């Protein structure tokens, strides 16, 4: 049997050969399929990439040319990028965005971990109810509770005009993060934890020194999600910080480039690309963790 297979593979079994090579029409069909699949793939990639190319080409045009329907820049004005970075406010928005995204991510992960651990590994009476409430609050549109929240932060805490009303709640767990971490934690066999318990290890120590190292990829994924969420947030800064340009983030301030420079599409596009760039850079460095996270939300959930 094994001999026949090797003989076939080597092509020294003449009687079998015609069956191995597909007849002509079938091979042609395969070639046509190959062409079809690759044409579709190239078309799709063009649809995804060309917008970036057009934005970039416009971002290096002169003010005058950016107002025409030209596609290719006649003079390459790299200075547009320095002009954008020197625009008053742009540096502050960068700092604010980094603070919002950095602190927000840190707070979210630290506060959500113990909750996710308890929901995954402790047995207690209202666990099912708690989990359902977590999932419900995950699905809640942020606009539903915005009126009382604004009244609370502005009237009671006097924090409107800052980003703190967005950052502070993140120190009290985020439903999506809790849910995702819990899904990951379920995959850890409880025997590991029981072994540590027998050795007299407290739950907090188990969480920090055994569980956290094991679920590092999951932590990376939820941290990335939260970072992107803060980076992209438009509604939050619009509600709490719109009155104070000193507290704007990049996502919120970006719009005002249209104001500062009338319809200078070239500067606008340069600023747009500068806001996109960090997110895309982060993605290239952390692609694996990110894709794993996205997959987990939809497939294994």
């Amino acid at each position, binding site marked *: 049997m094994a001999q026949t297979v090797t003989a076939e593979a080597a092509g020294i079994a003449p009687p079998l050969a015609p069956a191995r090579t597909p007849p002509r029409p079938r091979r042609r069909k395969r070639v046509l399929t190959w062409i079809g699949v690759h044409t579709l793939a190239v078309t799709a990639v063009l649809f995804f990439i060309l917008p970036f190319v057009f934005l970039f080409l416009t971002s290096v045009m002169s003010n005058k040319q950016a107002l025409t329907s030209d596609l290719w820049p006649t003079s390459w004005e790299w200075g547009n990028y320095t002009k954008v970075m020197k625009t008053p406010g742009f540096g502050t928005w960068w700092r604010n965005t980094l603070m919002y995204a950095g602190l927000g991510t840190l707070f979210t992960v630290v506060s959500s971990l113990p909750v996710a651990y308890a929901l995954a590994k402790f047995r207690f009476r209202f666990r099912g109810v708690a989990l359902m409430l977590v999932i419900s609050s995950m699905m809640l549109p942020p606009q539903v509770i915005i009126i*009382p929240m604004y009244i609370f932060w502005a009237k009671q805490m006097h924090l409107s005009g800052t980003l703190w009303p967005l950052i502070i709640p993140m120190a009290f*767990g985020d439903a999506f993060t809790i849910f995702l971490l819990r899904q990951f934690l379920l995959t850890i066999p409880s025997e590991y934890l029981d072994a540590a318990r027998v050795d007299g290890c407290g739950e907090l120590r188990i969480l920090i020194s055994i569980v956290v190292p094991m679920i590092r990829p999951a932590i990376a994924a939820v941290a990335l999600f939260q970072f992107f969420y803060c*980076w992209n947030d438009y509604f939050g800064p619009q509600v709490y910080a719109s009155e104070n340009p000193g507290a*704007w983030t990049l996502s919120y301030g970006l719009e005002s480039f249209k104001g500062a420079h009338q319809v200078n599409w070239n500067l606008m596009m340069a600023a747009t690309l500068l806001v996109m760039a960090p997110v895309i850079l982060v993605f290239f460095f952390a692609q694996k963790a990110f*894709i794993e996270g996205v997959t987990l939300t939809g497939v294994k*959930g």
Partner: protein
Amino acid sequence: MTTTAPAAAKVPAALRRQRRRRNLRTLAFLSPWLIGFSVFFAYPLGATVYYSFTRYDLINPPVWVGMRNWNYVLNDYPPLWQALRNTLWLVVVMVTLRVIFGLGLGMLAIRLKRGGGLFRTLSYLPYLAPPVAATIGFAFLLNPGTGPVNHLLGNVGMPQPGWFNDPDWSKPALTLLALWGIGDLLVIFTASLLDVPREQYEAAELDGVGPWQRFRYVTWPAITPVVLFAVVTGVIQTMQYYTQAMVAGKVASGIIGNSGQSFEPGYPQGTTLTLPQLVYEEGFSTFNTGAACVISLLLFVIAMAFTFLLLRRRSGLLDDD
């Protein structure tokens, strides 16, 4: 452990103490969320119900007005119905097209042997573009006068729609933007398509079935749960649709961003209006807080209805393993 008898006698008290300690420990681990849930979810939700029965301009104390806000929003407030109609359009067209497009791309991605990884990375990239940046980018690309898209369409003699500036084309333009950011669906569809057992395809091949039947009887049954998940989360996201519609309206209408110039969401002619934008408009532009809370609660009821649908159909979400 050598003296079994006294230990057995002590068990109830020790057990009780142990149980109490365990409960306290659970409570401690859950405490961040318990506080967060009560202060940033339960309390504001209750307060929204309360404010929906009051007149409150954020300066003077709230005044109880009974059902007046509810009557006003449900009977004398045409933007509500327009926003609901727009949302329905987006659910039917945008969510459906996104699922079909994502599925098609996923099937394409798994057929590419060389360059499959590159294809997936490049297709995923637009999903990462911050929504504000992506929307401003599209407002430029689709701008009717000088935008590259209409320039190219003109070159090949195709009609040049007004996109974000035309009431008939504003929602299709937003749909195009949503299809560009298909990355999330591409990833989950690709993963689930790769999970379809290969043997079933081979068996189908042996039976000599065509590509459509192979999809219908092998692929589709295996991926239905993921498609359902994509549809339901798509609907929930559409309920919250805000940033893209707001920014596209602002940029296309030529309102100078954030300069204090008032902008009524929904440009052009209310065709991009959604419920969250109405909440913002009533709550923070016209300071009709009571009406904003009524709209918030309608949004809440719709979103929760779909969440329960998700939980019921995917009870696996609540399982342990």
